[in-house]
């Protein structure tokens, strides 16, 4: 059933499960709770279409990132950010879940293997092939060939993104949810506060832009409004808790992470590479596979690095326009000649030719307590304080990016597979511009390409602000995503990630939501 809150005439609603936020996590939860014997209320701030007045509710202060980062990367619409999701899917690597002594505050309370069955179900929901949990590549449909994966050296391994185009959960699940008997989708209702007694949320306060107020009482509440809004709502829920709900240890909003992406250089690659895989291999109309070369866990451990994946810029893509320099032809011929003589160029590949490609890196960011969401002085239309994000690259983030590029260049040279031209050699990444990726104009991109001026792009992968830990002193939620000290409040979405790995988060968000749904299905009322 669908109800528009602006036309709802009751001041209160009673339900079994109240899910606040209808994005990837919230919709997944609601679908998974269908036919569970529980009544579910799915609350969405926006409607089925994006509107300016709802966009204005996404105002935020982000002094260190340009391009309207937090206003552009959040969407108040049924479907949430899946409405502009590029569809990149990849499970987090096993190392992401482990405690890594060289990464402060790393380690999930759950093992990666615990997510395998949920990843498999998430793949089915999204419409992609499942991954082989013991390998790095997808298990293809029977009619498709298995990819032949190769990497330049022992320091790198190829992992393959599956990219599912046009995967808007709002379009995909609208009919299913609005026709369900046990689910009510309540649109145009913005949750402005959670009011709690000693150990549980009593009710959620919802408001509409037309002035209505609705109180929702539920046995269980799930906060699924994204990595910024989850923290903002907890911090703004101050009745009886001046520091905010679940924030007794001052952890809510801290450890914010994204996936910095950077044009890092150009490469001349000798024939023999399966470049078709790395540049994007179309399987069918809506599904593309694309390889990226990630540093191996062994290499990260040996060098004390974060995870990072190198991708090749395809012509026509945002980084697909390398410049031609006077020395390119000379390096291509001379170095190729030398590598053939060394026996390094791959067998059968000794054709005197080379391909030039742009290289870009997407990397993990270290969880850092000072990268945080707080509440600003300025308020929105509901008088709720705007979120303020303090974010910067720290030393480990910068070193990891620099070293990954260097290691890739070394691998090309050592193995006789090509040569690298790095843009980072004389750059201090702590001081380069950071902008919201989708806001990049063609003109800006051209200038970055032309001037080879490192610029960090961030894509709105909001992670870490309600991080998961079994220790209340180190995390906001426990291994079941339940807020420490609040018995009936759970959090869904990437805000629970203690570390973010180097893979896009949506597949893991869906997998974790399915896991939480199983818990809620079996929980006693």
């Amino acid at each position, binding site marked *: 059933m669908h109800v528009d809150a602006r036309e709802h005439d009751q001041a209160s609603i009673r339900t079994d499960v109240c899910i606040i936020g209808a994005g990837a996590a919230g919709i997944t939860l609601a679908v998974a709770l269908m036919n569970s014997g529980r009544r579910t209320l799915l609350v969405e701030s926006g409607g089925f279409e994006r509107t300016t007045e709802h966009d204005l509710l996404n105002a935020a202060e982000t002094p260190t990132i340009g391009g309207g980062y937090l206003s552009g990367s959040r969407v108040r619409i049924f479907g949430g950010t899946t409405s502009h999701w590029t569809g990149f899917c990849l499970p987090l690597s096993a190392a992401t879940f482990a405690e890594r002594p060289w990464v402060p505050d790393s380690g999930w309370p759950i093992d990666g293997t615990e997510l395998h069955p949920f990843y498999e179900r998430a793949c089915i929901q999204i419409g992609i092939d499942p991954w082989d949990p013991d390998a790095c590549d997808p298990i293809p449909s029977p009619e498709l060939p298995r990819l032949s994966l190769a990497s330049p050296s022992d320091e790198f391994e190829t992992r393959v993104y599956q990219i599912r185009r046009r995967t808007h959960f709002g379009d995909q699940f609208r009919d299913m949810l609005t026709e369900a008997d046990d689910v009510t989708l309540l649109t145009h209702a913005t949750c402005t506060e959670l009011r709690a007694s000693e150990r549980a949320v009593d009710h959620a306060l919802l408001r509409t832009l037309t002035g209505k107020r609705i109180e929702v009482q539920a046995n269980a509440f799930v906060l699924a409004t994204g990595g910024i809004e989850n923290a903002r709502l907890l911090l703004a829920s101050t009745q009886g808790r001046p520091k905010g709900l679940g924030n007794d240890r001052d952890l809510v909003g801290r450890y914010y992470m994204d996936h910095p992406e950077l044009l890092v250089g150009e490469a001349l690659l000798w024939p023999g590479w399966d470049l078709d895989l790395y540049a994007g291999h179309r399987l069918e109309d809506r599904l593309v596979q694309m390889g990226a070369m990630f540093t191996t866990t062994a290499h990260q451990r040996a060098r004390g690095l974060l995870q990072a994946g190198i991708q090749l810029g395809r012509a026509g893509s945002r980084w697909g326009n390398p410049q031609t320099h006077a020395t390119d032809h000379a390096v291509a011929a001379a170095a190729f000649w030398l590598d053939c*003589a060394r026996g390094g160029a791959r067998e059968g590949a000794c054709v005197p030719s080379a391909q030039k490609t742009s290289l870009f890196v997407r990397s993990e960011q270290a969880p850092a307590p000072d990268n945080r969401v707080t509440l600003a002085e300025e308020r929105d239309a509901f008088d709720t304080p705007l979120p303020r994000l303090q974010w910067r690259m720290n030393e480990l983030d910068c070193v990891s990016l620099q070293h990954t590029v260097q290691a890739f260049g070394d691998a090309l*040279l050592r193995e006789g597979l090509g040569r690298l031209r790095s843009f980072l050699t004389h750059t201090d990444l702590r001081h380069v511009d950071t902008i919201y990726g989708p806001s990049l104009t063609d003109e800006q991109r051209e200038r970055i390409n032309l001037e080879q001026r490192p610029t960090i792009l961030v894509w709105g992968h909001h992670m870490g602000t309600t991080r998961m830990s079994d220790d209340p002193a180190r995390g906001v939620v426990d291994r079941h995503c339940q807020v420490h000290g609040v018995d009936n409040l759970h959090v869904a979405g990437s805000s629970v990630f203690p570390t973010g790995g180097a893979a896009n988060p949506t597949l893991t968000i869906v997998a974790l939501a399915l896991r939480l749904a199983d818990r809620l299905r079996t929980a006693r009322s």
Partner: protein
Amino acid sequence: MTDSLDADRRFVLRALACLLPTMACARTSLPPLELWPIPTAPVPTAVFVLGRQYLAAHPEENDLGTLRAALGLDVPEPDPGTIDDFDGAIRHDLQTRDVVELEGWQLSRTECRLYALATLTLTTPARVHSPDARRRP
């Protein structure tokens, strides 16, 4: 000096000759790509371009004796098979981060010296742009 120069020249020519069959080996069919094919320059031209750039940046090595010694070729008659050893030297360069930047391209010290040696032995000294070279008749 003349004997050494002849030896170097013979070495480089023989090394290039050894490579010819390699360069003509079976062609692979390249996968369809939307990357950017780079037509390569003729090998000697390319080697000389890089060799000259390296020598201009490192005039202290613009000397056959110095280069031969640095490459371990300071023996009367270098064996063309020695080129196999350069693979190990290049790997060693990377281990010790002895990497040279030529217009941003990351090249190993050893490979740059090889290009420089080829440049000094296969071109007339006067073509090498360095103060020492210009002083020669």
